[in-house]
């Protein structure tokens, strides 16, 4: 196993963890966090592809590396917008829950939403 394969597997596991967190965690902030994990997994896969493309005296294929830099900056902007939406909703309604009041959410969540 070489470095590319090791980080390839790490990238796949990161995407998996992110997808799991995105589905399971009820809080929007945790979903943003999980989505960042998925994004990092994709970036890592991209970096592995860049690493394998080393040649012509370069340590890696510069085109995917440049794309990665762009991607990291854009993902920060997306996270900032998501956090902004969350905080505004919290300021307006005092809640940050995604469960709608008449949502057929699992038992506990429902009672909790109604109690509020």
């Amino acid at each position, binding site marked *: 196993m070489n470095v590319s394969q090791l*980080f390839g597997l790490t990238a796949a596991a990161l995407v*998996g963890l992110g*997808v799991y967190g995105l589905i399971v965690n009820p809080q929007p902030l945790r979903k943003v966090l999980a989505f960042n994990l998925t994004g990092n997994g994709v970036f890592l896969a991209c970096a592995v592809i860049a690493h394998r493309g080393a040649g012509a005296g370069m340590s890696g294929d510069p085109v995917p590396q*440049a794309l990665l830099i762009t991607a990291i900056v854009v993902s920060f902007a997306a996270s900032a917008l998501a956090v902004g939406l969350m905080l505004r909703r919290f300021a307006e309604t005092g809640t940050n829950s995604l469960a709608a009041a008449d949502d057929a959410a699992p038992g506990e969540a429902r009672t909790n939403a109604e109690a509020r």
Partner: protein
Amino acid sequence: MISAISVGIGILLLALALWTVVVRDTFAAVAGFIPYGLLLTLAWLVLRAVDVALTEAAIGAGLTGALLIRAASRLHPTETAAQAETPGLATRVAAGVAATAVAVVIALCLLRLPDPAPTLAPEVARHIQATGVGNPITAVLLSFRAIDTLLEAIVLLFGVVGVWSLAPDRCWGGRPGLAQAVGPNDILVYLARVLPPIGVVIGIYIFWVGADHPGGKFQGATVIAAMWLLVMMSGLRDAPPVSRRWLRAVLILGPAVFIALGLLGAVMAGAFLAYPDGWAKLWIIIIEAALLPSLAVTLVLLLIGPPQRPEVSP
């Protein structure tokens, strides 16, 4: 060959990622995300992507971490309500199966990448002379794929517009963020007086050296943005009201210069964003120099959020 340090980085990365997903407390999850970002920086270094490592350390770990920590502490009152919403076992098992399936498919794809790997490195090496810059990544960002960088700058601008549009009506045109109350003898105030001159020089150096070595405008802009944030957090200078004309001028300076030179290229060299022969280096420097302040201000404004305090009329 594979070194022990690479294996260690991989295992620690996954352990911290798992922590951010499964830990109950949101603040603890975000606190795990920051060392995770720094480990990811090491992973980029192992993969010899130094420019990406710099960006990750500055933006991925630094700014995103700061953004999420702030949000986690503000949203702390919703914590107990949210924990009661944790889905049942069936949902969790189904999510686990779905996530595993996705991960396995990606792993199989990444293990069966074609050999020899397709690469554009020789193409870049062949044409880099024409751009006059020595760092191939800068050449890709500002010349071969300049349209990507232009669109990215515009996406960031839209991000700021999006964040600002979340301002309550009565606060529109006011100052973003909450007023900071820090004692005048606080260590933060001391750092905010001492660090910015050094930080700004380092930021400009990272930007300038990016032409030939790892570095560039994104990384440099983040260091400058961090210095401004430090001054704001210490309360030495308040955030500017978003209605300020100079603020908006700086915001659009980078993209505007980029588009203007792109159109000039259409006239002089026959294609949008094409550089006339012999002028490439100068044009790249002009575009980067215009983008640097725009990016720094954009990153700060994205981080501190929408206006929240109406401006007191003088």
